[in-house]
């Protein structure tokens, strides 16, 4: 296992203290605390506050903010800056997320660390710009063409927006992959207390550069954890990287054999390290009859429903997906044989629900409490679903 030597955050970047911030501002502060120094974005409600805060803060912390001409340019600019050796991030919402998909795939293929925050809103198309949704979750997984594995985190509060932004940067550097933070308009615009710790309490994963000299280095020879070290630009490595299917040298090779090797490693890079990336919070799952699954803001909305159901004597457990992708297949399968029903609550017409159903594989019932978006669930609907599950 490759050893990672963490570094501490730079005190100049970290806005230590207790603040009253909304989720978007907290995401921006998280990125800055993580050492992000390049931001390219395009204004789109409800994510614009992230860009605005970054544009205010960056000149004071030595970063560069650019508002690009469109989301396509944003996605590419953050890839270019990342290759230039700088931590970079962008933010967007549904329509912009769709535009970024092709080059999100480029980031995957080139294996470029960067962070993309999607503050989800009601969709499809222009939808509900100022109201929440959680309907981009499958797009997060499959939005770009081709085979690849994704890491997507879902914060449920401004505090977590701050923390998961840092975690996203750490995961992106660790696995050389663009990481998604799938928040939503509700968390993005809700204002709560956010405690930002001192810089020395924030651990960051530094970029993994190669220790081989120029001439002996090829861009895609992985280490034991299937992650290849990166080359520094401008130091004589004269490497070539391409979005075409490539071999260990980074050169394009158009053959089925190289396709197998190239894509297999991209997929395995996350699959084989999944247990270190999967992050769920379980409560009362042992001996439960019903388990309520949720992520993001919805996991706060289900609390009153669960409390009501418990009062009625139903043994309800809950799983909150902090990392929605990679999906915790093993744990969901394991619990499926022990419980009666999974109740999936999400602000869409069924996206992660199908993962739950797939993993349950008929060993328990699965119920979806959908919502078209625009507002959070009514806890009573969740309560009714839980009750219905045990009838």
């Amino acid at each position, binding site marked *: 296992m490759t050893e990672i030597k963490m570094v501490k955050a730079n005190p100049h970047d970290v806005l230590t203290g207790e603040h009253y911030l909304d989720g978007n501002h907290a995401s921006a502060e998280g990125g800055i605390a993580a050492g992000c120094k390049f931001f390219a974005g395009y204004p789109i409600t409800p994510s614009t506050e992230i860009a605005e805060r970054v544009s205010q803060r960056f000149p*004071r912390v030595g970063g560069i903010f650019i508002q690009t001409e469109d989301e396509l340019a944003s996605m590419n600019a953050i890839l270019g800056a990342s290759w230039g*050796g700088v931590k970079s991030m962008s933010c967007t919402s549904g329509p912009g997320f769709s535009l970024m998909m092709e080059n999100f795939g480029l980031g995957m293929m080139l294996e470029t660390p960067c962070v993309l925050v999607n503050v989800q809103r009601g969709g499809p198309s222009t939808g509900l710009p100022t109201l929440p949704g959680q309907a981009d979750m499958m797009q997060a997984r499959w939005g770009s063409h081709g085979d690849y594995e994704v890491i997507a985190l879902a914060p449920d509060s401004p505090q977590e927006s701050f923390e998961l932004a840092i975690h996203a940067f750490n995961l992106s550097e660790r696995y050389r992959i663009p990481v998604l933070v799938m928040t939503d308009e509700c968390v993005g615009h809700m204002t709560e207390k956010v405690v930002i710790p001192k810089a020395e309490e924030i651990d960051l994963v530094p970029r993994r550069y190669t220790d081989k000299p120029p001439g002996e280095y090829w861009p895609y020879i992985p280490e034991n954890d299937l992650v290849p070290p990166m080359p520094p630009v401008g130091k004589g490595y004269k490497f*070539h990287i391409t979005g075409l299917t490539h071999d260990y040298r980074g050169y394009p090779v158009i053959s089925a054999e190289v396709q197998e090797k190239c894509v297999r490693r991209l997929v395995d890079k996350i699959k084989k390290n999944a247990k270190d990336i999967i992050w769920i919070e379980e409560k009362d799952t042992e001996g439960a009859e019903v388990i309520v699954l949720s992520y993001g803001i919805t996991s706060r909305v289900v609390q009153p429903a669960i409390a009501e159901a418990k009062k009625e004597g139903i043994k309800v457990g809950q799983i909150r997906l902090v990392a929605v992708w990679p999906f915790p297949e093993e744990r969901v399968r394991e619990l499926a044989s022990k419980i009666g029903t999974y109740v999936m609550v999400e602000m869409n017409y069924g996206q992660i629900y199908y993962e739950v159903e797939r993993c349950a594989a008929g060993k328990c019932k699965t119920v979806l409490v959908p919502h078209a978006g625009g507002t959070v669930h009514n806890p009573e609907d969740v309560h009714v679903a839980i009750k219905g599950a045990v009838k």
Partner: protein
Amino acid sequence: MSTVEIVEIRGKVEKEHPMEKLLRMDRIPHIWCPTCGIGTATKAFASALEKLEIDFNNVAVVSGIGCTGRVAGYMKLDSFHTTHGRAVPFAVGLAIAKPKMKVVVFSGDGDLISIGGNHFIHTARRNVDITVICVNNFIYAMTGGQVAPTTPILANSSTTPYGNFEHPFNLPLLAASSGAVYVARWTALHVRRLTNAFAEALQKRGFSFVEVIAPCSTLYARRNKLGDGLNLMKFYHDNSIIKHGADPREIDIGFQDKIVVGKFVDIEKPTYLDCLNEGYKRVLGDAYKVYGEEDEQN
């Protein structure tokens, strides 16, 4: 020439081509067709780098998709082969992250001006310090010869089998009106002037643009019954007019018509980072932390 002498030449490869230090020899010969002008443009670029005695470690090449997009793959520099139309924004990110590096975008007319058009005009407007080399062969060659936004009116292509009925872009005009500080056009035949133009463009601070009119034998020439690349080169020889400082509005290219070449724009203008740094300093004073090269390596 006697047979003996021919065999001798064939066997004799003891001297390597002077450009081999700038080429990925493990990938030569390249994929471009015989009589394609992209190879010549690449040679001119390599000659310009040599001439400027630039540190090759400090040059990055970013290409898009298409025949010209393959240039990045053959040059022995830090090179990036990005997605269609997105070489310019990728280069912008790279150039901002590494302000001391020379970032060159080397791509084709379709890639830079059609799908990449928006990025092209905005980056020129911002005057980001990169050099954009556009090899214009008037067609989408790699994908089989479809019409491009630079295809002259009346020309034939696979998607305009009855002739192109759209007005094409005038690239120097587009670049100049978007704010480029250096705009030049040469053909692949004008190799030495092209090399000088590349050298000037590389040294210019700000967004510099060089259009290279290049022959495409397999698609453009063939579909329009113009012979092959050599015939097109002869055409450039007989029909190019050198007019430095010409008004970009008057240098449209018609189908098999006169081609005005030369250096059209060479002005000074503060770059994107100049304006940014100066502006922040003015407003924030000492609170401004200048963006420098973040050395994130050990």
